[in-house]
């Protein structure tokens, strides 16, 4: 294996070429994860643009293929090449390292694409298929969406409110597709490492449905072992049987998350000391509450006093003071709260990405930092066909 110095290599992915044929957030996010590490990701689009360009929200409220914030979010650092029909695809694949496809089996067939044959034609190519249900099986051509995927895959069953007359509620942000992208990224990396050893590419078949079926945390072990199903609860872990609320409303109508674990003596003492320092521990300072059993038997009293304590303070203060006291309390931030967070600012987390006519826009930085890799500059998503002339096709 040829050895190069990291100082001459801006990123280990700088030489990698990725061709992306993706029309949902799963494949697009997978492409972005590779692009933001320095790979050249070329997004292939039809003349009218990828369907994700037709999704809001819109920059400045102006609808148009180059104004979709949905498209911006998942396609930064990529190039856009327009192809009318897929005849021009094969020449692009000849020197590509990874081909991302989100087409389900019937759509592949309709497009005249045979992924197995592509692997045979280009033995070094890694074909990264990211689909709703995978390329095989009785549901392989079933339609899906973020909501439908979260439902059938399992996470939705754990999310919602205490009141089960209300249906399970989808957690926000496209997490079905994001889960698919996480596994697509891992699959691509494993295949790249395999190729470093063997020189050979392969077909990597990622199923969003299965990704979600193993992204349910405790629900699986509770079924594997005691054979019980967990029941959803308002903003806290779904459990085999109900547990106390963990969401506390504060004086400014914002919330903090805190799990009151009555059996943990140390955190109990920290909590009471903190509440007492504000003169609000009420009867919880009485000696009988030092006993776990007594606390558990008088749980409703405890819960009420703690609820009152939070209700008369602002959420930010409760978050900071609670953490300083050593308690795992989290404030429920809204997205707009994050940009001014001193911790994120000190870490330089948000990155300004230039958009002509708008100015710098704050994007989230990468979730990982490497001492060995230079930072790859972040660039905006491409305009439709922006790089059509640059890429040989």
């Amino acid at each position, binding site marked *: 294996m040829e*050895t190069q*110095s990291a100082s001459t290599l801006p990123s280990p992915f700088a030489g990698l070429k990725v061709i992306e044929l993706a029309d949902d957030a799963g494949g697009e996010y997978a492409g972005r994860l590779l692009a933001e590490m320095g790979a050249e990701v070329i997004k292939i689009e039809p003349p009218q643009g990828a369907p994700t360009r037709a*999704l809001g*929200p819109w920059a400045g409220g102006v609808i148009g293929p180059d104004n979709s914030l949905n498209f911006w*979010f998942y396609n930064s650092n990529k190039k856009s090449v327009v192809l009318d029909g897929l005849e021009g695809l094969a020449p692009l694949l000849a020197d590509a390292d990874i081909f991302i496809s989100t087409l389900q089996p019937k759509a592949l067939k309709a497009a005249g694409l045979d992924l197995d044959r592509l692997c045979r034609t280009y033995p070094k190519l890694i074909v990264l298929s990211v689909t709703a249900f995978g390329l*095989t*099986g009785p549901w392989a051509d079933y*339609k899906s969406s973020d*909501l*439908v*995927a979260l*439902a059938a895959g*399992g*996470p*939705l069953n754990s999310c919602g*409110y205490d009141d089960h007359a209300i*249906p399970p509620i*989808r*957690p*926000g*942000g496209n*997490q079905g597709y994001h889960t698919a992208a*996480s596994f697509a990224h891992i*699959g691509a*990396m*494993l295949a790249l490492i395999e190729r*470093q050893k063997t020189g050979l590419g*392969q077909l*990597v*078949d990622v*199923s969003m449905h*299965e990704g979600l*079926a193993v*992204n*349910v*945390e*405790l*629900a699986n072990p509770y079924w*594997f*072992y*005691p054979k019980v199903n967990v029941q959803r609860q*308002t*903003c806290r872990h779904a459990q*085999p049987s109900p547990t106390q609320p963990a969401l506390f409303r504060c004086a400014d109508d914002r*919330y903090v*998350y805190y799990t009151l674990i009555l059996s943990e003596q140390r955190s109990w003492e920290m909590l009471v000391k903190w509440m007492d320092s504000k003169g609000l521990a009420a009867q919880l300072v009485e000696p009988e509450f030092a006993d776990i059993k007594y606390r558990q038997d008088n749980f409703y009293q405890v819960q009420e006093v703690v609820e009152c304590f939070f209700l008369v303070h602002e959420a930010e203060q409760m978050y900071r003071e609670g953490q300083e006291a050593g308690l*795992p309390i*989290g*404030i*429920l931030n809204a997205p707009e709260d*994050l940009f001014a967070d001193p911790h*994120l600012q*000190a870490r330089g*987390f948000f990155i300004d990405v230039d958009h002509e006519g708008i100015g710098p826009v704050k994007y989230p930085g990468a*979730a990982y*930092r*490497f*001492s*060995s*890799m230079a930072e790859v500059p972040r660039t905006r998503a491409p305009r439709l066909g922006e790089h059509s002339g640059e890429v040989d096709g």
Partner: protein
Amino acid sequence: MQPASSRTPVARRGPLTGVRVADFCWMGVGACATRLLADFGAEVIRIEDRNRLDMPRRLPIYKNEVRTYGEEDANPDPNKGGLFNNYNRNKLGVTINMRTARGRELADRLIASSSVVTENFAPGVMERWGLTYDRLKQLSPQVIYARMSGFGHSGPNADYRSYGPVVQAVSGMSHISGLPGQEPSGWGLSYMDNEAAFFNAAALLMAIYQRNVTGEGSEIDVSAVEAGINLLGPILLDVAVNGRSTRGPDFPTGNRLEYPDAAPHGVYPTLGEDRWIAIAVFNDAEWRALISVAGDPEWAADPGFADQQARFENQDALDAHIAAWTRGQDRYALMHRLQAAGVAAGAVQSAEDTNDHDPQIAGRGLFFELDHPVIGEARFEGTPIQFSRTVQENWRSAPLLGEDNAHVFKSLLGVGAAEYEALVAEGVI
């Protein structure tokens, strides 16, 4: 394939063979990340403390033994916990008492023979043991040092305590989830424990890939909160670009979408107690298919449902009709009828359902079984990726506490018999 009864470590297969990992990770988030390395051939050696058992070893998720949550096992058998088994298959397990000088010396030797070190303690713990990146490089020059924590290893809140739900709260993931005008429904699981683990696993693979090219190691800093912010999705840019407030009465939108104008788009009741089906209709063709499956009811001809835009604006009325129609139907039968007609629909499935009633998952062999000396045969979550070349070898269930001490310390590190006995006698291992 070795006989199932054998638990003796063997040469591994997969793309990560030859990578030895000194794995200080614990809890779910750490163990879930290194599980991926172990699955694909890395020799992952879990380093545990007999005096401070990993929480998944203590949590009483036991086979055939239903307990109420919080009903703790005062004296848990560390080898009986299902959660630990779930997260630690394919790994080796050793015990080292890091509060002893000899324990730390032994850990140094293990690190010197490894090329990856992983940890997810509170920031400062590894430093207390002298295990900085500089020290690790002295021990193992090409080392990759992967560190994961809630808030990252720099910044004023680096020491804040966190676990999945706190990460979900602080990153904004909880706030963006729920019905409009109500308290957030947030998350019913530590989604961010899993996702932070996946980000960390990907980062480890990227560093290994780079090292294979350059010969140089890396220190990796993964912050779960920063991973969570990345997962907020396009709403974050709506806020950044348009100054949109997410604290109004119109956000979040529950099971409905803001974009595109999908309708119906929701979760509807079906036959049985707390049984539901998700249905998502994005265009006129899908609407006509849905209505045809419903038997072309009269209400569907209402001008309020004439086109996608109208249906989107009249979702309250539309959802009431759809719910009245789905109620009383079998969720799977309805799902298959709708899918056959070209409508995206999925039964809301529990873990029981995905494990036992899902032919798609069964057909692709996602879940698998391994035997365990104390637990017996148990089920495991596989990897939702099918490779045409790369092999996932499931060679063993999770290690018993200290199960591989002799193999690792004697065979791999060359600790002599007398020294080994002394380490045992002194409580170092």
